[in-house]
């Protein structure tokens, strides 16, 4: 650990803690999950970077959305995302959550995930290689360092619109609102 690091640790321990202890929600949303086991096991060993699969969303701060999102999964994703404590970071993995990918004309997958929940980073490709996850993690470090990984703040501030989009895609949601919705005219 060099002097710069120590300085950063002393200045903002919370930020640095989040950087080096990214616990990912273990949620197999799509086929991208096939590359997660190699990443967390001996070949690529994500634990070196402090990335660890967490058993429950309450304990996690990183949400890797691995692959296409069908409408039914979107509901589970929103539930899981809202259960995670703040600050939380989301990374979309694969082409499909970015713009639908090869399921652009499927009636049951949503095309742009960032219409429904905020995304801090994308990994493009189908299937992205495991190394891409590490690039995404290091990129997320930079974003956290610069204070740019603010997806959860965006979600809180624009909750009304997100909720509106979610209800457009899913119909009426049965769970209560996470935040009070601000007046749009303000």
């Amino acid at each position, binding site marked *: 650990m060099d002097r710069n690091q120590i300085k950063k640790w002393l200045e903002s321990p919370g930020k640095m*803690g989040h950087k080096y*202890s990214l616990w990912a929600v273990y949620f197999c949303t799509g086929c991208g999950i096939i590359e997660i086991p190699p990443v967390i*096991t001996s070949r690529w*060993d994500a*634990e070196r970077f402090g990335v660890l699969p967490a058993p*429950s969303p*309450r304990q996690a*701060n990183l949400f890797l959305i691995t692959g296409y999102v069908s409408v039914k999964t979107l509901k589970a994703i929103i539930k899981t995302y809202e259960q995670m*404590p703040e*600050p939380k970071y989301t990374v979309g993995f694969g082409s499909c959550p970015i713009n639908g990918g090869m399921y652009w004309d499927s009636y049951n997958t949503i095309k742009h995930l960032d219409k429904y929940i905020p995304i801090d980073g994308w990994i493009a490709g189908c299937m992205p290689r495991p190394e891409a996850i590490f690039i995404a993690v290091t990129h997320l470090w930079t974003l956290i360092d610069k204070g740019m990984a603010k997806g959860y703040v965006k979600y809180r501030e624009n909750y009304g619109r997100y909720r509106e989009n979610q209800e457009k895609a899913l119909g009426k949601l049965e769970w209560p609102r996470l935040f009070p919705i601000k007046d749009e005219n303000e």
Partner: protein
Amino acid sequence: MVTVMKILEIIVSPLVALIVGIFFLGLFRKMMARIQWRYGPPLIQPVIDLVRLFNQRGFSHGAVFDLGIILSLAGALVLVLFIPIGGMCPLANSGGLLVILYVMLFAPIGIALSGGEGANPNISIGISRKLILTLSYEVPFIFIILSLMSYYQTISIVEIVKAQAHYHWSLFSPLFLSGVAYFMILPAMLGIRPFDMASAPQEISSGIDVEYGGKYLAFSQIEHALSLFIVIALFVNLFLGGGNLPVFLLKMLAVFVCGVFIHASFPRFRIEQATKYLWFWPTIISFISLIVIQLIR
């Protein structure tokens, strides 16, 4: 002067326990990684995790939810004071083994209280598993404590440690069978495999921890680190003859490494299998040991 030393010890011994416990957590992860052909996280990773967790918002499910975790943490901290740590034994003369028997139940009960408020079915399954497991290992544990007390004719741990000075370890005395039985229930007391069913992530989403986030999880981790320390320290004190601080810690390390190897090479039991195992071999062995001790004395 004695009072000042006492107060100093009361402050220092939980700190030592905390540092050693968290170091063990880090070592645990590193060693597991090496056994699994991985490089593994840095040794201070648990500290980083704790820093992160304290900086994250946790959700509370009510007053009992908060109180329970604090109760279990307090129970663990108090327990540390009753255990001699390499010559440091702030409260070791008052109560001794009997107090330990009681206070050791605080941690599971506190977690049970806290989890009951969480209203997640995974927690209730986790709690029932944890309590059944506690019940299972308490039986041989009481036999072991009884044979120790009747062999040394005392309830004070300090006296027991003193009696073992100059390599008269109780592990190599007529208490040998008790030591074996203690070693057999050690994984259950530590909550490592094959007895980690109370917090099995693949079965019940880490059970009792499932609703903990942020500082609650941090407290839970600290409690885990402390209980790791307590159980191993107790074993070292009762059977491996204590010693001064460095020797004591080295002995703890040796026991801990054995525990990691056990953790790495076994899957987890089902709860009824665990109970069956704990009520069979360790109980029989410790009971035989108790009878042997009674016959000798």
